[in-house]
């Protein structure tokens, strides 16, 4: 893993694997690479089965900038040697990532092609940069795009070679009984050549396209052999998940080759196949897609609605159920409706703990004059009673006055003392509120003064 192997290492491995002597292995490899080089220098590509293709490509002269100085430079026309790996090799090398497949995105963006293609090349460039050893500046970018182009084309070719032989044979049987092996071989070679021939003008287009920074679909190169359409597509080589389309392509191709065998005019209707293969990508967003897409908005609105509903619910319920007993200033006030019971209870408790005055029998009915009785509970005071009955604690003085027989000292009160709560009018008459308050205050002062005496 990540080792650096030299020719010697390869020779050793080869000798082991092929069961030949090291010398033989060495001479073989030397000869092999020498032969490849010779062909390259003769401007001829070399393709090795299940490995790849070495191809010399003419690069046109172009203007560029010297990275160091910034001055303009002209890169002269030159020949570049490219290698496009075969499908078998690609798959073997990509084994760790073989589980990945290209997936369609549904994020609602519709990016136009111009940007997309550049992004693609830039992405590849990022990885490629560290490997640049050329003096040419943007060579790598072109190299990769070319590689992938020639890659893809070359990938299709051997695939066709492999697959068309059986289909070629099938056609043969249908047509006329002939000796199989040699003739089908010859035919496959013819097919190969006819493939290669129209490829030649196509590849020139490739070069130009590569220069222009575009990629051509491998499908198109094969299908549109006689056309020279230049629609740009960035389709990957078809994945195994789509076997149907692949077989369709193969069928259509073999038909094409058959046509070519018989007559050279290849007027197929490529648009049909084209639509077939690309139809898979034409997916319109369905209902559930829309739901999924708008999911956050839907969730948020649901939460809001439920919050509002809850608020209404609380409000509604509040008005219905009986209001709790609202405590006055004195926490121990008892509503009038219950005071009889409480009186009875308090008298019971008072009889245990009281030190002095004991409440009178309490079953006296409530006078229509509103001469009300009330008890002093623990923590209660005259003031609390006054607040309760009169609404203002200052009027405790009248309670005191009324019950002077029971209370000697307004500050000394006993729990359980039953007091008569007089009608305010008895003491205040029909005074105005201000006067009543004033009178009560005066009375209060007087009582206090009396005490201190």
């Amino acid at each position, binding site marked *: *893993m*990540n*080792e650096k*192997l*030299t*020719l010697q*290492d*390869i020779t050793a*491995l080869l000798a082991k*694997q*092929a069961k030949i002597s090291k010398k033989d*292995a060495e*001479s*073989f490899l030397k*000869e092999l*690479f020498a*032969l490849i*080089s010779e062909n*390259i*220098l003769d401007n*001829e590509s*070399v*393709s*090795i*089965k*299940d*490995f790849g293709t070495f191809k010399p490509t*003419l690069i046109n002269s172009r203007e560029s900038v010297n990275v160091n100085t910034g001055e303009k430079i002209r890169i002269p026309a030159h*020949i*570049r*040697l490219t*290698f496009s*790996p075969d499908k078998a090799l*690609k798959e073997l*090398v*990509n*084994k760790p990532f073989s589980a*990945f*497949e*290209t*997936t*369609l995105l549904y994020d609602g*963006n*519709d*990016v*136009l*092609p111009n940007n*997309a293609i550049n*992004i*693609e090349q830039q*992405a590849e460039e990022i*990885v490629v940069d560290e*490997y640049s050893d050329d003096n040419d500046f943007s060579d790598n970018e072109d190299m990769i795009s070319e*590689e992938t182009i020639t890659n893809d084309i070359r990938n299709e070719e051997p695939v066709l070679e492999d697959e068309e032989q059986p289909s070629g044979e099938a056609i043969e049987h249908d047509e006329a009984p002939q000796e199989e092996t040699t003739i089908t071989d010859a035919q496959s070679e013819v097919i*190969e050549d006819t493939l290669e021939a129209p490829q030649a003008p196509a590849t020139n287009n490739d070069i130009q396209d590569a220069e222009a920074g575009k990629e051509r679909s491998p499908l198109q190169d094969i299908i549109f052999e006689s056309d020279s359409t230049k*629609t740009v597509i*960035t389709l*990957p080589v078809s994945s195994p998940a789509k076997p149907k389309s692949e077989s369709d392509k193969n069928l259509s191709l073999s038909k094409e080759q058959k046509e070519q065998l018989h007559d050279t005019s290849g007027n197929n209707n490529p648009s049909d196949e084209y639509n077939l293969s*690309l139809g898979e*990508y034409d997916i319109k967003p369905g209902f559930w897609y829309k739901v999924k897409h708008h999911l956050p908005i839907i969730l948020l609105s649901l939460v809001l609605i439920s919050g509002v509903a809850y608020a209404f619910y609380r409000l509604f319920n509040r008005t219905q159920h009986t209001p709790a007993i609202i405590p006055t200033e004195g926490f121990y006030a008892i509503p009038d409706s219950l005071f009889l019971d409480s009186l009875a209870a308090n008298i019971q408790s008072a009889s245990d703990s009281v030190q002095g005055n004991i409440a009178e029998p309490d079953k006296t009915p409530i006078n229509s004059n509103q001469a009300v009785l009330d008890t002093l509970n623990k923590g209660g005071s005259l003031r609390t009673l006054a607040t309760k009955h009169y609404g203002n604690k200052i009027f405790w003085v009248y309670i005191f006055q009324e019950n002077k027989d029971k209370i000697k000292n307004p500050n000394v009160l006993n729990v359980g003392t039953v007091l008569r709560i007089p009608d305010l009018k008895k003491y205040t008459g029909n005074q105005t509120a201000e006067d009543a308050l004033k009178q009560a205050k005066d009375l209060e002062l007087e009582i206090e003064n009396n005490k201190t005496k």
Partner: protein
Amino acid sequence: MTNKELIETLAKRLDWTQNQTADVLKNAVDVLSNSLSESDTVSIQGFGVFETKKLQERISVNPVSKQRFLVPPKIAPAFRPSQIIKDKLKNTTANE
């Protein structure tokens, strides 16, 4: 030059039978592929370097349907010709 032609020429040069050379060629290809599949780099003096490159995943667009799709990350084999070859190529261009 196709595979067959390659085998023919090699057999002739090495004075081996075609079957033999075909077999050895297959083995040689296997050896190279296996080392590449293990992410080892193979450098052939005077020829070039075979290595693997890791490509990041990227988002690209089908220009016809405008459908965006995600191309997953992958490891790809690559070849870098040596300076000798490049110079030779340059010279041949110069000569033309």
